């Protein structure tokens, strides 16, 4: 009985995989199908974040013109600039070679 149920579940899983793979292949070429997939994806988190609330780098220390932090504005650049905006999915696993 248990083996029979397990066989049924396995068959169901493989049937589902074949069907879903077919839908995904269709979505790759058909915009309507792709929209259907996105609609099923769940609740979207829009990644665009509000400006950092408190410690904005620029001018926080009133260091402008006093020397000692010429590069502070530059230091702000590049941090998570792509985050949440899409288009920069990577494997995220490798440090630059100079690190």
């Amino acid at each position, binding site marked *: 009985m248990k083996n029979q*149920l*397990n066989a*049924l*579940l*396995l068959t*169901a*899983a*493989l*049937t*589902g*995989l*074949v*069907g*879903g*793979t077919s*839908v*995904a292949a269709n*979505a790759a070429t058909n915009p309507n199908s*792709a929209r259907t*997939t*996105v609609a*099923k*994806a*769940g*609740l*979207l*988190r*829009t*990644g665009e*974040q*509000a400006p*950092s*609330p*408190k*410690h*904005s*780098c620029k001018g*926080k*220390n009133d*260091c402008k013109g*006093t*020397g*000692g*932090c010429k590069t*502070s504005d530059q*230091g*702000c650049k590049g*941090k*998570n600039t792509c*985050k949440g905006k*899409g*288009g*920069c*999915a*990577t*494997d*995220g*696993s490798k*440090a*630059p070679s100079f690190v």
Partner: protein
Amino acid sequence: MSAATRGSTENPPRMSLLEIQRTMATAVMMPLTPSEDMQPVTPDGRDMHAVAETFIAPNQQLTAFERLELYNRQYWYRLLDALADDFPALRAALGPQRFEALSVAYLGAYPSRSFSLRNLGSSLIPWMAEHPEHSGRRHRLALDVARIEWAFVEAFDNAQHKPLTTDQIRTLSGDSRLSLQPHVRLLALDHAAVDLVLALHRRQRRDSSEAGVRHEDSSDAAEEKLPRVSHRPSWVVAHRVDNSVYYRSLMREEFLTLAAIESGYSLGEALEAGFVGTRKSPSRWPKMVEQWFADWAEFGWIYENS
């Protein structure tokens, strides 16, 4: 012979570049005082003013200490901003002051060690679990909020391998071991908190767009009033579709099956694990399984790790 090795009697020996870098890093990474100034004493007990003068020249307006202090502050402000950027709903739930205290304590325990600020919050959840005193009476909810937000970071940029192909599916059996895409992050939560988190994100964006960058330095530590959230287990997956991150609710059985696949169970074992303790009638199981696997394949969540 260079000045660095000659050891002039008139001037102290020059520091090597490595010594300067290490001294600078130690100074810059020291926690700020409660009034957000640089510590007057180094971790090994030396006078910070004297240390700063060994490798920083004063200018007409600032002493060596004051010049170094700018970098010390910027370092910490940058880290605190990065955490606030990754956990906006947690910050809203705890209130800005409590969140900042939590951030400082966390960064004291887990200083930045990665080349990327992306990884700064990677230990926050286990650390919070061990330090409930920082998240107050809403500790369990705060943990869920942090889990949901960290899952976004991982779902956003974790890898995506080539999903299962039809040819690969044909070769599968109950003994096959499949893998979950690294961007698919499974969450078992104590609260149905995804709606809350997304509502907080929306509120924060709305407030910021209406008022620009709000100045909260003078605000009280009052916690933002939260939307109602039910205290019941929920199972959620964070995943990426077309470079956007979505949160999708799962049935408990679906979650357990995915978790078993992720843990390396064979396909047959995972299907059994999914229904442990379920109250759903076995007659419904095959239909449920077929729908789950169809959805997972459609989203490309499954791949074969050769």
